[in-house]
């Protein structure tokens, strides 16, 4: 359960977040949408502790993560938007490094690795892998340590349709196992496929947060893409 309340973030004169409120219930998939610069990535980075908010609070299962130690991140799997890794390491060395750092003793979740048929690429230096393959490594790394919260920033960017489908299937099966997911994306059809809820950010403020069907019925639109477009037109007008 994630509860974000009245979150603001100011970089110098620039207010990126001006009051973001959203709640993601356990085992649900929340999509974050909004135009470029709306604050999607900043919300994610604040949740991960990469960024300290100017004000507001973030609670995970009732406990504030702000000013606390790093241990809460042991339950989070993060897939960043851009996948860049140490060039001369291989994927298996990368996995080993992160596993080492997390101190994970248990079994790793290699199902996505098999799904992508990535085994043959594991011992090549990451520098020689294609952008799409690196993105697959990125996804595998996020899912490897059996997180209870999965944070994905544009997860299918750079993936071919087949790989994208494999990843989405895996996310949905994790949701069925009770994993909470937060996913930022520009691809509305993808969010419609994955998400229970959606939060629409504009200029650093939550303009809507709730179930997708609620959004489509409020805006009287047929699908998410048109509903978001309708919201944006309404906001501009």
């Amino acid at each position, binding site marked *: 359960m994630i509860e974000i309340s009245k979150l603001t*973030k100011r*970089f110098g004169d620039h207010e990126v977040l001006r009051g973001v409120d959203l709640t993601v219930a356990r085992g649900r998939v929340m999509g974050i949408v909004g135009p470029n610069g709306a604050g999607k990535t900043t919300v994610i*980075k604040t949740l*991960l*502790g*990469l*960024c*300290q908010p100017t004000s507001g609070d973030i609670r995970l299962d009732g406990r504030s993560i702000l000013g606390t*130690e*790093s*241990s*809460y*991140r*042991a339950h*989070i799997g*993060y897939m*960043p938007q*851009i*996948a*860049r*890794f*140490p*060039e*001369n*390491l291989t994927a298996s*060395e990368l996995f080993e*490094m*992160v596993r*080492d*750092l*997390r101190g994970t003793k248990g079994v790793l979740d290699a199902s996505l690795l098999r799904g992508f048929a990535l085994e043959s690429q594991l011992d090549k*230096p990451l520098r020689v892998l294609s952008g799409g393959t690196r993105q697959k490594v990125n996804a595998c*790394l996020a899912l490897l340590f059996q997180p209870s919260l999965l*944070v994905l920033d544009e997860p299918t960017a750079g993936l071919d349709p087949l790989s994208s489908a494999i990843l989405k299937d895996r996310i949905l099966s994790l949701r069925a196992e009770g994993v909470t997911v937060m996913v930022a994306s520009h691809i509305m059809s993808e969010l419609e496929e994955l998400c229970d809820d959606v939060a629409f950010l504009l200029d650093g403020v939550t303009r809507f947060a709730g179930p997708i069907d609620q959004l489509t019925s409020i805006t009287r639109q047929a699908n998410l893409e048109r509903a978001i477009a309708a919201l944006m037109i309404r906001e501009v007008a």
Partner: protein
Amino acid sequence: MSVVTKIVRAQTRDAMRSRWLIGYTAFFFLLTEGVIRFSGDGPKAVLTLASATLIVVPLVTLVLSTIHVYNAREFTELLLAQPIRRSSLFKGLYLGLALPLVSGLVAGIGLPVLLHGGGDPANRGAMITLVATGAALTFIFTAISFSIALFAEDRLRGLGIALGIWLLVGLLYDGLVLVAVALFSDYPIERPLLALTFANPVDLARVLLLLKLDIAALMGYTGAVFQRVFSGPLGPTFAAGMLGLWIAVPLAVGARQFRRKDF
């Protein structure tokens, strides 16, 4: 094994396979090998190597480290999202960069010397001081690079600052000091000059080598003053202590920036 060690181990593994580090090591290997072949392993060899070290180590360290920190930005963010403390991550990233550079330098200079039978025993102390000073400069300029890259979001600007710092401490500084000397030659300026030497790690390193080598050829003006004041056993100790301070302060600044930064 601590988190810091784990990060250092992985970073070192990455660095050891990088072409840059191999090139850097090869440069010092060939230079040392060449110098020993042409002029033997006497004080003259140490002097030549020292002049090269004082120019090349700060330059290569600043450029490689700054570029590396920018290139590792996304991966650093990924590591920050892991359940580890920021302070440990910073130490790990810093040592993971500085230690391979130091080992490149040590191997590049040390191997040829060992291959030629360990060098002239009378000269060994100076050789060890040279390598140690080079290592200290590497630690100093790696810390400064982290600070630059954390300060400037734009990588071109960061690289510009790094090169500017190198030009200043490596080339322009002694000239500026000479100008100051010429301008204020009517006043007792020895003590301010001494302070100016402390303000530049490359000058400090040069003085340390001079005191150990007892040769005047490498001396800039600040070196001459320093030698007069600090000839005796206290001089090298003091200079080494100041170099240590030059590692500690930028490192503390960098760690503070890293702890507070919004990535």
